[in-house]
């Protein structure tokens, strides 16, 4: 600082004037850009908000004008809705159980004993994201044996693969935040078995990661349309698309509820992540 003041004492007129001159046009520039930025943001916001409002208005507006919540009570009696909801729920539960049973022990083991295998898992779990579901379904429907081909549970088997990338990533980062080695050694030296260690020590510590993994799986199963549609099973998204109701507004209403639910789920996950990282910081 001292040297700077000294330098200014030399009273170089160029130096004193320079920042002043540079500042003025910069400010003008900034102000003009603010307007441009405001306009861009308003148009973008309208593009994202207006369709949402339109969907809500269409599904909740009374023919006589004004809004009403009565359409909500008609969803349950819409033909086919309950069985679609039941199918999606079954698929979600099965998918969640299988993907957890498969991934939790594997990812924990890889973290502890086989770190080199992490690269392999990373690469494997990228493929379900790269391969388009429509292309994947072509292979699945041909490769599945006939008895499975006729079963709705084929979808759950396939959804496990689709859920793997998300489950792997949240478990991997959850484990990364823990001192797994110490926890396991402590538990093992106190005489508990491997299964016991996973169930009583690691799982409780991974609560947030498991939570976000299952919520993501749930959202995925309830939203998956492509494979269910080409395999002709009426899950919720397929029902929204195909259901012939006497009131088409009901389909739009269910679609809007699904979008809102997606938003809530994602916000939940973000806040879970945040509280998890806060907790782990506190414990250090």
């Amino acid at each position, binding site marked *: 600082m001292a040297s700077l003041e000294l330098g200014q004492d030399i009273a170089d007129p160029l130096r004193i004037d320079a920042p002043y001159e540079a500042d003025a046009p910069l400010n003008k520039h900034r102000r003009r850009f603010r307007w441009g930025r405001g306009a861009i943001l308003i148009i973008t916001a309208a593009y994202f908000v207006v*369709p949402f409002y339109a969907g809500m208005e269409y599904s909740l507006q009374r023919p006589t004008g004004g809004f009403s919540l009565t359409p909500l009570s008609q969803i349950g009696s819409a033909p086919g809705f309950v069985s679609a909801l039941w199918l999606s729920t079954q698929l979600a539960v099965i998918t969640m159980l299988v993907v957890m049973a498969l991934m939790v022990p594997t990812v924990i083991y890889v973290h502890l004993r*086989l770190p080199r295998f992490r690269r392999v898992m990373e690469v494997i779990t990228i493929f379900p994201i790269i391969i388009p579901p*429509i292309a994947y379904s072509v292979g699945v429907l041909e490769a599945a044996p006939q008895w499975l081909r006729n079963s709705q549970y084929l979808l759950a088997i396939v959804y496990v693969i689709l859920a793997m990338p998300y489950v792997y990533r949240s478990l991997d980062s959850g484990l990364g935040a823990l001192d797994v080695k110490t926890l396991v050694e402590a538990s093992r030296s106190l005489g508990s078995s491997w299964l016991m260690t996973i169930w009583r020590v690691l799982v409780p510590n991974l609560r947030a990661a498991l939570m976000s993994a299952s919520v993501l799986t749930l959202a995925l199963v309830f939203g998956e349309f492509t494979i269910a549609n080409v395999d002709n099973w009426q899950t919720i998204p397929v029902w929204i*698309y195909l259901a012939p109701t006497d009131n088409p507004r009901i389909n739009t209403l269910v679609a809007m509820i699904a979008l809102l639910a997606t938003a809530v789920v994602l916000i939940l996950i973000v806040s879970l992540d945040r509280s998890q990282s806060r907790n782990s910081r506190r414990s250090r």
Partner: protein
Amino acid sequence: MTVLTTPDSAASSDAASQETKGTKGGAGALVRKIRTGAPVVPFLVYVILVLGVPTVVIALYAFKSNSGQFTLQNIHTILAAHTKQNPTGGQYRAGFENSLKLAVVTAVVPGILGTIIAYAISTSEHPAFKRIVAATSGVLAQFGGVNLAFMFIATLAATNGLVTKWLGAIGLDPWNHGFSLYKFWGVALVYMYFQIPLMVLIITPAFAGLRPAWREAAEGLGASRWRFWRHVGIPVLTPAILGSMFLLFGSGFSAYATAEALTGGTISITPIQIGAILQGNVIAGEQNVAYALAFAMIVILLVSVVVYVLLRRRTSRWLL
């Protein structure tokens, strides 16, 4: 399994040291190696059966005739142009052209808009605003499929859509000016609803990596704003922006649900054509065309992912 046996200097777990010790030991070492690898077997078996086998089936059947012999006929069928000699064919090639066009449009336009929004966020001084835009992008990038299609039908359907009514009231009904929600530009408009937030999400970190020191250095050397962007900002960001656009391309190219629900399967793009074949709308003798189409889609996506990875590597030289 070969991966397990490659020597890896970085690994330092006891499992690794057991293995290196074991390489001299013969049979005992093999047993130990198998034991170390055993717990990942269920995962591997599941992935091989449910992901690997179907993928291999696609690749094999794409080159198989209906009688089971090797053939290039399926590839010929999907690439053949509609000509006088081939009056009934060409729809698959047209489908690919439409798909590629749709993917490019919904990668480039949202790519540019998303970059501008990310720039606006990065220069904003309100942390709350930044957080809200980031969170909203995260949510909106996941929207899509049937739900999004129904939302846009309520917005822009002919005569009854809310915005159609608004624009109609001022004499600008888009449906009277050649627009259709169920054709190319309508579908593109709907895709942008998830592509723009996706772009914002993946390009924002690049802007955060643009160091203030570079700006200060440029200004100190007398560069104007424009010259800073021309010679520093844009060159540094270009690989990141291009790479993100390839990711958007992949997402637009593989989307099926949104287009199917929006157009009722009437738009001729590759995913919709595959869906139609799977649901039984097949021209006799072309059953295996679906495999060729699926195979071609996977190849195109793999290429775009490789380009994305390469561009990302280039990006990380300066950013992140």
